[in-house]
């Protein structure tokens, strides 16, 4: 790994100052993606600013019909929290499907969505539930936040502080994991919101990263039934293709996972 200067700020403001003062800074959250990337020499920060112990990023509570999750909350904490289990059990279920136990102990929700890996799990929940992302500077709706593969609306030095999830009537997440990496080959999060609107978001499969499956949303808003998915065509031209699976295979997986998620949601 290339040399860098490690910083452990004590406040959000100090973190932003350290980042701004660096020729090439990176924020470190759980490090489950960044540290392997740095070991491979694919990221070579001059200054590494560790957000792991900032009190501003540590919270987990229900407030005014929203589940509010601090950015430094680990996957294990989301997976096992009684607050999450009570408010959005599908989110706890999703967190428990990320990586493996050791990775879940360190990886964080803020790190996951800031990185916006096209095969990460959390972006599907954030987008399907219509969550808002609060940062050190502003508040963004999920639709504006995610801007394609590994790309977000975050500006240089901006820090995700918390994610505010509206509590849905019901929700479910199903994914087909890559057997080696546990990343999603296709993951589908289906949420029925309080007003009866159904939202569907797909991760792992799309060429532009996480996306909303609007045709499925329309069909399922009319009738919430896995059979409604059957007639929908997922265009392979918009799907990822790699050594793990072709675009046509992923297009089929999206439908299969969507049907399973709807079935779970009705169960």
């Amino acid at each position, binding site marked *: *790994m*290339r*040399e*860098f200067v*490690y910083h452990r700020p004590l406040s959000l403001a100090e973190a932003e100052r350290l980042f701004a003062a660096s020729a090439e800074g990176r924020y470190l959250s759980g490090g489950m993606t960044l540290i392997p990337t740095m070991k491979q020499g694919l990221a070579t920060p001059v200054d*590494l600013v560790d957000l792991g112990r900032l009190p501003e990023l540590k919270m987990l509570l229900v407030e005014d019909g929203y589940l509010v999750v601090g950015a430094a909350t680990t996957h294990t904490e989301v997976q096992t929290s009684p607050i999450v289990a009570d408010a959005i059990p599908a989110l706890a279920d999703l967190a428990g499907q990320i990586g*493996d*136990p*050791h990775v879940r102990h360190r990886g964080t929700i803020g790190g996951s969505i800031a990185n916006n890996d096209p095969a990460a799990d959390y972006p599907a929940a954030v987008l399907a539930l219509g969550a808002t992302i609060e940062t050190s500077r502003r508040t963004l709706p999920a639709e504006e936040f995610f801007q394609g593969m590994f790309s977000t609306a975050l500006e240089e030095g901006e820090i995700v502080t918390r994610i505010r999830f509206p509590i849905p009537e019901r929700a479910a997440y199903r994914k087909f994991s890559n057997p*080696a990496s546990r990343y999603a080959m296709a993951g589908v999060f289906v949420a029925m919101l309080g007003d009866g609107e159904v939202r569907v978001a797909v991760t792992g499969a799309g060429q532009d990263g996480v996306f909303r499956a609007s045709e499925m949303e329309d069909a399922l808003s009319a009738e919430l039934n896995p059979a409604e998915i059957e007639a929908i065509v997922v265009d392979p031209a918009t799907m990822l293709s790699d050594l793990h699976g072709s675009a046509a295979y992923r297009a089929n997986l999206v439908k299969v996972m969507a049907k399973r998620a709807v079935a779970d949601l009705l169960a």
Partner: protein
Amino acid sequence: MPNIELTVNGTPRRAEVEGRTLLVELLRDGLGLTGTHVGCDTSQCGACVVIVAGKAVKSCTLLAVQADGESVTTIEGLASGDALHPIQAAFHEHHALQCGFCTPGMIMATVDMIERHDARLDEATIRHELEGNLCRCTGYHNIVKAIQAASDAIAASKSQGVQVDA
């Protein structure tokens, strides 16, 4: 270079590390605790699993500075004198190893697994929970048996009010 303090296997240690020093490098090269292995170095195999602040982590994917102030338990910290920890004893009893390279990580993952499930493990749970640890000899059957036996032994000693420390 950052100076860090951590408690390793119950003993306070100080070390001067580079920012880029991984926890596994500090343990092996800095502190001579070579029981923690590096298998894949890509965060997949789990040979390097140790317990930091009570939770199993992959020490090849953690900077030593991130563990500053924390308590770290490695495979060397489990036995008390010549008496093996119940998990080590179960791995020995059930021959839950072939080449033995993955064994320290498997055992440390088991410490965490039993703790999180309060020593109430069944085979399906054990197999699922082992997703973060790879055995290239594919010795999983006996590993699963050993974890089950260790879990049962720890549950029994808990019900008798005996404290088993990780």
